[in-house]
C-alpha cells in the first residue's frame, strides 16, 4: 500500500529523526509513504482570518496533488497536520475560500475538499491496527513509563481536527500500549508547551514546558513522547524529562533502531 506523504520543512532539517524513523517503520509495517513531489511549506501556523487566502494555498496545492494521485495524504508533524487538515475543512465548507482558492490556482478539476488527510497515528490505528502492530513488535518497551504529550495542534479545534477526544485523548496511549510501554495519564498532556513564543519569551515558554513535564513526572512518567518538533524542542529546553519522537519509540520497538532509551 502506498500513501502520499507530506513531510514538511522541519522534518527535513531539525526533525529528521521524526521523519526517518516514521518512514522506515511504516515501510516495515507494509505501507510506503511516498513523498509528494514539489511540496511547499504548509505555512506552519493556520491563518485564523477568513480573508487570508494566499497563506493557505500551499496546503491546498498539497491536497490537490493527493487528490489527483487518488490516495489519502499522510502527515507526521503536528503543525503540518493541523494546517492541512483545517485548510481541507475550510475548502469544503467555506464557499468564498473555495472559489477564491480555485480561481487563484485554476486547477483542471476544481478542488473542494475531496482528499482525505490522515495523521501518521491515524494510519497506525485505523489501517495497520494497534493489535496488529503489537504482534509485530520485536523489542517491546516493557515496563517503561511514558507520558504521551499531545500538545494543542493535533487535538484542537476538535470540530475540524476530529482526531481524538480533545480533553481525554487515547490514541498515543493506545500506541504506547501496543509497543509494550506503560502509558502515564497526566492532565497537562493537552496543554500548550509554549509554542513559537519561545522565540521572543524563552522564560515563559520554559515555564510552560516545565509545568507539562512536572505534571507527567509527578504522575510517574520516566520520559515523554510527542509528534511535534516544536513541542520536542520546548520540552527539551524547559522540561525535566527526556523527550523523544513517537516514531523513534516505534522504530525501536520494531527493531529498526538500536540503542537504549
Amino acid at each position, binding site marked *: 500500500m502506498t500513501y502520499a506523504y507530506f513531510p*514538511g*520543512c*522541519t522534518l527535513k*532539517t*531539525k*526533525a529528521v529523526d521524526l521523519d526517518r524513523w516514521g518512514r522506515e517503520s511504516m515501510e516495515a509495517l507494509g505501507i510506503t509513504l511516498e513523498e509528494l513531489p514539489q511540496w511547499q*511549506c504548509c*505555512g*506552519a*501556523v493556520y*491563518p*485564523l*482570518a*477568513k*480573508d*487570508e487566502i494566499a*497563506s493557505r494555498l500551499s496546503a491546498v496545492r498539497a491536497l490537490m496533488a493527493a487528490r489527483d494521485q487518488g490516495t489519502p495524504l499522510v502527515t507526521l*508533524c503536528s*503543525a503540518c497536520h493541523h494546517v492541512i487538515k483545517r485548510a481541507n475543512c475550510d475548502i469544503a465548507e467555506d464557499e468564498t475560500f473555495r472559489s477564491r482558492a480555485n480561481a487563484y490556482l485554476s486547477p483542471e478539476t476544481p478542488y473542494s475538499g475531496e482528499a482525505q488527510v490522515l495523521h501518521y497515528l491515524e494510519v497506525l490505528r485505523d489501517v495497520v491496527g494497534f493489535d496488529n502492530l503489537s504482534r509485530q513488535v520485536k523489542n517491546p518497551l516493557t515496563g517503561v513509563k511514558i507520558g504521551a504529550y499531545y500538545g*494543542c495542534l493535533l*487535538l*484542537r*479545534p*476538535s470540530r475540524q481536527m476530529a482526531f481524538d477526544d*480533545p*480533553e481525554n485523548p487515547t490514541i498515543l496511549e493506545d500506541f504506547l500500549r501496543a509497543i509494550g510501554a506503560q502509558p502515564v495519564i497526566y492532565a497537562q498532556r493537552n*496543554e*500548550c508547551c*509554549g*509554542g*513559537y*513564543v*519561545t*522565540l*521572543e*519569551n524563552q522564560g*515563559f515558554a520554559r515555564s*510552560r514546558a516545565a509545568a507539562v513535564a512536572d505534571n507527567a513526572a509527578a504522575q510517574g512518567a520516566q520520559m515523554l513522547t510527542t509528534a511535534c*518538533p*516544536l513541542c*520536542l*524542542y520546548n520540552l*527539551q*529546553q524547559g522540561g525535566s524529562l527526556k523527550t523523544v519522537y513517537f516514531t523513534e519509540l516505534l522504530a525501536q520497538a520494531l527493531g529498526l533502531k538500536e540503542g537504549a532509551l
Partner: protein
Amino acid sequence: MTDWSSRVQEISGVNPRKCMKCGKCTAACPAYDQMEYHPHQFVDMVQTGRVEELMASKGIYTCLSCFACVERCPRNVQPSSIIEAVRLAVIRRQGGNHRKPDEIPALLNEELPQQAITSALRKYSKGG
C-alpha cells in the same frame, strides 16, 4: 476612520455577542500572566468597540494559539480567532509589523525548529 470592531468581526468570523461572559477562556488560558488583557476581555473589547486599545497591547503577541479557549468555550465564540484578527489588523496597518524579518536572526539559536521561525514570522509580520 476604520471601524475596527466590525472589521475584526469580519476577518475573524466571530460574533462577540455570542459570549455569555463566563470567563472559561480566561480560566483555560496558559498565557494569562503574560497579557494585560485576557481572552474574555478581547471578546468584550471587540463588542464594545475598544479595538484600538487592544491593538496597542503587547499581549496579543503572547497568545500561544493553543486553542484551549476555542475548545473550552461553551458558546463557540473562538477568542483566539479574535486575537489573530486584531494582530492582523495591526500588521496590515502600515508599518505595524511587530517584528521585522531582519530582527529575527538575532533571536535564533541552533536548535530552534523551522516551524517556530516560520510561525513567528507569520504571526508577527506581514507576509512572512
